[in-house]
């Protein structure tokens, strides 16, 4: 039962990704051509409300469902890994038209060709793991 809440949250996530066309290759293409506000509105409003939520959590020292204080891990300071890694990610995002979340939602939607993309993503993660110590971070 511990996992039911995560399953249901995932279901809500999957439905909204599909219904707002965030899983659409076309919407990503349109976004990178700056020809629609749709994706910017989604990410922008999520970040504004998300930032508000994070501030409220921090200021009220909100506790999670288990009673432990909610904490945030600051990301490591670096430029190269975020810029280079992010650029590689962006190349794939615009080609596949899907980032990791939508890949899985699309499989559920019935588009099984996304399984090839997911295998590629797992493979990419694996190769990163092998090369990690040789890459600048």
């Amino acid at each position, binding site marked *: 039962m511990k996992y039911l809440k995560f399953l249901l949250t995932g279901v809500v996530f999957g439905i909204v990704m599909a219904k707002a066309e965030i899983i659409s290759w076309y919407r990503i293409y349109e976004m990178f*051509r700056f020809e629609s506000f749709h994706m910017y509105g989604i990410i922008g409003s999520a970040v504004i409300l998300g930032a508000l939520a994070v501030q409220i959590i921090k200021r009220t020292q909100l506790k999670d469902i288990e009673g432990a204080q909610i904490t945030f891990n600051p990301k490591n300071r670096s430029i190269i890994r975020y810029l280079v890694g992010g650029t590689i990610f962006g190349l794939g995002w615009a080609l596949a038209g899907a980032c990791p979340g939508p890949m*899985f939602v699309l499989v559920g939607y019935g588009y099984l*060709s996304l399984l090839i993309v997911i295998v590629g993503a797992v493979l990419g*993660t694996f190769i990163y793991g092998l090369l990690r110590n040789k890459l600048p971070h």
Partner: protein
Amino acid sequence: MDIITQPWAWYVAGPIIALVMFLLLYFGETFGVSSNLRTMCTIAGGDKYADFFKIDWRKQQWNLVFVLGAVIGGFIAAQYLSNGQGIDLNPKTVVALEQLGFQAPTAAYLPSEIFGEHSVFSLKGFLILLGAGFLVGFGTRYAGGCTSGHAISGLSNLQIPSLIAVIGFFIGGLLMTHVLLPIIF
């Protein structure tokens, strides 16, 4: 029911995504889908090849369950919440697609030129899908997060590294959309 089956507006989707992020924090975890790719490597035996995969994957089970939920959500949307209509793109985007050699979209989500049977079962088409996934998987781990981990969770927590990562997402995305797609197709 029409309100549900027609595409949802950005001002509906954005707040729900923020709610998902908040719920995962409230459940004592964090919103970040790409971590599951690492967990999958560990489960597949990747810990024998690199220390990066020596993690206790049981602590990540909740995230795998979340992704399973996302798959189910996609299924529910397809079966019960869809009106089967196409997508309402900017006409300029449709013109750009035609210049790329893509038909005007008939389905809402995926162009058959990349994801259709004809493409998937050709060597070039197969490698495009595998390669696109590879770039996403490699890039997201190198950058330490994807759209959910950096663009939503990270930016919400006002993390400069996440802003740099998102700038990278756009450098790569713009390069692919405007320079590489016309070469590939």
